């Protein structure tokens, strides 16, 4: 599909007109691209066709005379003659429609799908009048719940096999299936095995009738009451494109939008149903100000004044800002400008000890999802369970494995959902990623991190197989992530051509880091050293000169009484920082706490000033996904009460501090980002608004290219130039040129001609790679933009060996956790699973405990009690728990900054 040489086309005739199609393209698609829509029910462009519903049958003549054939199953062929309007075709299609209707209930007026129902529409446009069937219709018990989120009405089902195909082929959760036969055929689950899939909502969206309905939406509204805007999901960092649909200023539904490089129309159930949190009763509608023990509602004036006063009085080095991953890029930029440009502190971190150093995320050659999933490649997973943390990336990877022969090598401290896809899963000792990767790069053959030599050798061989993409993130919140960093450094050094796909989970964490909400960095992926002057020249008066503290450092400082003002911008350390003890001490230790949030989170409850922020679907702006793809988020409803956009709050505070951020609208901010942030050169509001940018735009605009061959690396590092040699290349002129390419690519892509698109892109990029001058003369922009940050790694820090009595702790996340999105979405809150400690069966005997028994886990930081579950998916010597999953908080066992967490497990 995605070979880059220009494909020859197939010419066929549709209704007398000659049309051009791609080789292998299905008649139904070729016809549609050329303006002839063939009706269909079972066909879905993202799934294997089954040709069941027969609605798309048309007369096709391949030389042996016209015959009725399903257009969804037949690939185009030269000189094929298709007639979608012949008498025979029409009669047959009308017949199929009548057949579909004879047993279909006429309950459109009370059906959720009414108004957006293909069956209804077909019937209106082609269908017969009243039914010719006088006999009894087929009957089933009315809607049955097939999961907590989805109900099934079998009388409405037309057996198109879409939901069942999705469950099996796309999600890999074959929990719904055709049952019985012939006219009795029905879709159903196995008794007492509900359709508990993280992706079940997609089946509701692709059901061509009202058979599947989502309980969070059922009867909420009729399609004609809804109006909608396109936006981007920020529940996690995959950045799925969505439709936000609302009625009477209330968000009622999200639908997936098919974006080729990202989500293909799919959403996970968390992202789909957490709209309920937007409408939550608990949303903050006004600021709160502490008087004595309690927080009282206050006007913005007093609240902001109080906050500003605290900031004014404090020495910049005793001010810290935590958070930002919830924000749009524009708000993140405004907050960076406030913190680093106005206040002058570098104690700023958008991550909460659960991520990776910003240099690692921004400074390594980055991969796109498409590059990671390119046919025949190999993915090295050095990160979390993608199904739990980045669900739709999991779907893309699953498709790459099942359809495109992509091999996955998984390095993890416990088995995950990805393990079922992986060619090999190496279960290593927590924190041992560095040693394991070192051994891998050495070709395996020796034991490392608890993995057998030959297993390592086999994996090493796989990595030789084809282009490798590393998916990089945190697979364990009970270590510091130093192992992963060391591993990444080693790989980059040994194979500079290898690209990395970030697997950090928080909604817009990548945008926040891009905008400089991290210690040592400034907007546009540049460092204090490289970019300080540039930004001072751009009017950032107080850019700090020395690197500040990261989240752990900030909290430690606060705990030690060294922080006067702690600003939490959508950050809730008490609930959301791995080391609960430290977070608690920090909030107690900080003199003044200012919280900017949507909800009165546990941390906000400790604050002195709480500023009510506008959230998702309430603000316009852009967000950046884990690829570095910038796409728009759109305001659909007004925020509750007087809640405001985060960037406005920053601007207000700046004003009260006597500075003018000079930012009056999201669009203005975007324009300033384009002008000042090196990595965002060329990302103009116009470009983003252009139809071509519908799929989002990758920044920097020249990185979207096939993984370069090693010798090209230095020049292609134009993406992330390191050293004066590249400065010429990274000037805006070249990037502009690339912008053309990128847009040209997207534009062509948009016209459906993907190969052509990639052709353009690559030629333009090739030109770029060899540093040719672009067609457009470079716009003179002096002084030269600062270079982008690069990561050259640090020394591998091997974790100390565990002592014989302890187990090494592995703390991972589940999709449904105690985060605000889930907790304030009633239909999701109930899906949070109970916590437990999983141990290898062998360790049960060793420790003399029995399955199910409650055990005490004791670490240096503290101790908690949990039920113990035998689980062969956990390697011997490790203890696996869920982070952020109910009380007792696992965070009580974790001490930030210690390499790994060892625990004693005893009968309690």
């Amino acid at each position: 599909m995605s070979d880059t040489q220009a494909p020859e086309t197939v010419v066929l005739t549709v209704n007398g007109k000659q049309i051009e199609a791609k080789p292998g393209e299905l008649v139904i698609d070729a016809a549609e691209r050329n303006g002839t829509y063939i009706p269909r029910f079972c066909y879905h462009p993202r799934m294997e066709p089954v040709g069941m519903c027969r609605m798309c049958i048309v007369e096709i003549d391949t030389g042996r005379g016209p015959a009725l054939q399903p257009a969804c199953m037949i690939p185009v062929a030269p000189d094929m003659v298709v007639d979608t309007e012949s008498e025979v075709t029409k009669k047959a299609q009308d017949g199929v429609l009548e057949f579909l209707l004879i047993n279909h209930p006429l309950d459109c007026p009370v059906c959720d799908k009414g108004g957006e129902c293909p069956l209804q529409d077909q019937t209106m446009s082609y269908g017969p009048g009243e039914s010719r069937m006088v006999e009894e219709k087929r009957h089933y018990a009315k809607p049955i719940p097939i999961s907590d989120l989805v109900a099934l009405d079998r009388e409405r089902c037309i057996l198109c096999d879409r939901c069942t195909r999705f469950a099996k082929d796309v999600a890999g959760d074959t929990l719904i299936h055709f049952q019985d036969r012939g006219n009795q055929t029905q879709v159903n689950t196995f008794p007492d095995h509900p359709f508990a899939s993280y992706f079940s909502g997609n089946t509701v969206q692709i059901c061509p009738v009202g058979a599947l309905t989502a309980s969070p939406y059922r009867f909420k509204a009729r399609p004609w009451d809804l109006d909608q805007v396109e936006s981007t999901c920020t529940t996690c960092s995959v950045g799925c494109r969505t439709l936000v649909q609302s009625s009477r200023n209330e968000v009622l539904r999200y639908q997936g939008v098919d974006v080729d490089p990202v989500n293909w129309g799919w959403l996970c159930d968390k992202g789909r149903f957490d709209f309920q949190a937007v409408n939550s009763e608990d949303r903050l509608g006004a600021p709160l100000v502490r008087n004595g023990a309690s927080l009282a509602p206050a006007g913005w004036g007093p609240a902001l004044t109080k906050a500003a006063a605290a900031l004014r009085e404090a020495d910049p080095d005793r001010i810290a800002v935590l958070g930002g991953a919830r924000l749009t890029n524009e708000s993140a930029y405004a907050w960076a400008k406030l913190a680093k440009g106005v206040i002058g502190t570098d104690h700023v971190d958008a991550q909460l000890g659960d991520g990776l150093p910003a240099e690692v995320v921004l400074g390594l050659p980055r991969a796109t999802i498409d590059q990671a999933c390119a046919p025949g490649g190999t993915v090295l997973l050095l990160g979390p369970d993608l199904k739990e943390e980045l669900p739709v990336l999991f779907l893309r990877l699953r498709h790459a494995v099942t359809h495109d022969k992509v091999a996955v090598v998984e390095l993890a401290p416990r088995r995950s959902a990805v393990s079922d896809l992986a060619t090999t899963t190496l279960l290593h000792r927590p924190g041992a990623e560095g040693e394991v990767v070192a051994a891998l790069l050495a070709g395996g053959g020796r034991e490392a991190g608890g993995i057998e030599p030959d297993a390592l050798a086999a994996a090493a061989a796989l990595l030789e197989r084809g282009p490798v993409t590393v998916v990089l993130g945190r697979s364990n919140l009970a270590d510091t992530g130093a192992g992963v960093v060391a591993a990444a450094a080693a790989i980059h050094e040994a194979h500079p051509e290898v690209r990395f796909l970030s697997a950090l989970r928080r909604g817009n964490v990548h945008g926040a880091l891009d905008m400089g909400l991290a210690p040592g960095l400034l907007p546009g992926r540049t460092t204090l050293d490289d970019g300080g002057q540039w930004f001072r020249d751009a009017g950032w008066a107080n850019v700090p000169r020395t690197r500040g503290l990261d989240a752990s450092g900030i909290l430690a400082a606060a705990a030690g009484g060294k922080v006067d003002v702690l600003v939490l911008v959508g950050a809730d350390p008490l609930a959301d920082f791995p080391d609960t003890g430290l977070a608690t001490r920090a909030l107690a230790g900080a003199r003044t706490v200012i919280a900017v949030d949507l909800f009165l989170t546990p941390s906000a409850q400790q604050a002195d000033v709480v500023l009510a922020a506008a959230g998702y679907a309430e603000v316009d702006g852009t967000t950046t996904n884990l690829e570095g793809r910038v796409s728009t988020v759109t305001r659909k409803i007004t925020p509750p009460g007087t809640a405001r956009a985060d960037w406005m709050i920053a601007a207000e505070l700046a004003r009260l501090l006597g500075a003018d951020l000079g930012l009056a609208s999201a669009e203005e901010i975007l324009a300033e980002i384009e002008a000042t942030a090196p990595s965002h050169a060329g990302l103009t509001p116009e470009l983003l608004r252009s139809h071509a940018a519908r799929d989002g735009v990758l920044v920097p605009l020249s990185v979207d290219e096939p993984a370069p061959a090693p010798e090209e690396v230095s020049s292609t590092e134009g993406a992330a130039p390191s050293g004066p040699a590249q400065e010429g290349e990274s000037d805006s002129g070249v990037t502009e040129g690339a912008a053309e390419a990128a847009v040209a690519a997207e534009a062509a892509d948009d016209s459906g001609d993907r190969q052509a698109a990639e052709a353009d892109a690559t030629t333009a990029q090739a030109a770029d790679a060899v540093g040719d001058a672009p067609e457009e003369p470079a716009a003179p922009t002096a002084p030269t933009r600062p270079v982008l940050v690069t990561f050259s790694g640090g020394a591998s820090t091997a974790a100390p060996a565990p002592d014989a009595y302890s187990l090494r702790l592995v703390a991972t996340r589940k999709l449904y956790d105690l985060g605000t999105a889930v907790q304030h979405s009633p239909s999701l809150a109930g899906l949070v699973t109970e916590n437990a400690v999983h141990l290898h069966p062998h360790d049960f005997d060793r420790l003399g405990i029995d399955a199910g028994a409650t055990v005490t886990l004791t670490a240096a930081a503290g101790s908690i009690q949990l039920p113990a579950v035998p689980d062969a998916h956990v390697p011997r010597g490790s203890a696996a728990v869920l982070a952020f999953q109910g009380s007792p908080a696992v965070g009580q066992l974790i001490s930030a900054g210690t390499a790994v967490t060892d625990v004693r497990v005893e009968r309690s």
Partner: protein
Amino acid sequence: MAVTDAAPIITTRFGHDDGHTIERYLATGGYEGLKAALAKSPTAVGEEVKAASLLGRGGAGFPAGTKWGFCPPGVWPRYLVVNGDESEPGTYKDRLLMERDPHQLIEGVLIACYAIGAAQAFLYVRGEMALAQERIAQALNDAYAAGYIGKGILGSDFSVDVVLHWGAGAYIVGEETALIESLEGNRGMPRLKPPYFPAAKGLYMQPTVVNNVETLSNLPWIMNNGGTRFAELGAETSRGTRMFAVSGHVKNPGVYEVEFGVTTFRDLIFAPVYGGGMRDGNSLKAFIPGGASAPWFYEEHLDLPLEAGAVGKAGSMLGSGAIVVMDDTTDAVKAAWRVVRFFARESCGKCTPCREGTTWLEKIMRRIVDGQGRPEDVGLLLDVCDNISPGIAWPPKQTTICPLGPSAVSPIASAIVRFQDEFIAYCGGTAESPVAINGKAYIAKPSEVAGV
């Protein structure tokens, strides 16, 4: 017009009570055909079968030798799948071959595997046929023990496992692509051809030859006597002998192996050595020449030879060699309803027109038989038929994946066209009112309707 004296080829051991044992089989020339085959090259064996012009006996009547040639070269492994799912109403021959002479079938399977290069064969027996399964299991066990199956057969480098598999009650599984789905452990829902022609993308998407039990049972004889000797019997495209089950209102219903292509329907139905004529001196009303899917024939077709081409031209098919005879006491409407009910019950449910259409047809027919018919029902029936099989022509066009749906059209169209008066008796209305579909008046121009 010819009751020929051609000697039987595949029913020779039916006379023996122990025809199913390996002892009897070996005592009567068993596994000699396999030895003969192993002495030739696989290609040469294929040529013999081509020379025999052995038509498939499962229904579609496709030449076996040619089909074998469709396997794409160089794609391995290949499989042989034996279709022993015999369930077409009126069809009764494969079960006899499996119960009475299982070794003959197994020998045929081995010969076919050797020729096409199949490294594994699956013998799919209909689920309801417990005795056949038992006999084949025993025969396989004995043949393995005697070294005719398995590793290094008869000391040669030819090795193949023959695996007994059995169904669980679903007529559609007789259709070759559904059979393959079923053999993969799935619901027996047919695949679209193209692209899923078994020879190209069959079992596990590998090249797969699907052959009927009777087809394969001919191979030992062909190997022993040569393809040309086989082709000397019969006429036109239809060579050798063939088994026909003559059932219904004849004096002696039975399964008869007769010379293919020359024997006529009249011979089979009336000759004393075969059907022996109508029971109780009644007269012939109609007969189904090739299983429930086949359009009906009437007196005027009696002298047609049992020859695929001729029968096809006359608007029906020999199908699976099932001749169901109806005398003048038969209620044509009820008979048609019963056949339609079969297809409605057996639709796999994949295609809308078949799933919904056959059930609807059955409901209408039942209503008519129950005395609730309306004059417009005849037209409605034909129009629904037309939506399942556009034009109600022969061979049938289809809006479906496989021919099951369109098969439900045959009995209705046949009955309506020939016995419209009986429908009128049930539904009212008059013969004058032409039954129109697609602008064609079927009663006025019966020749456009299947089987006439």
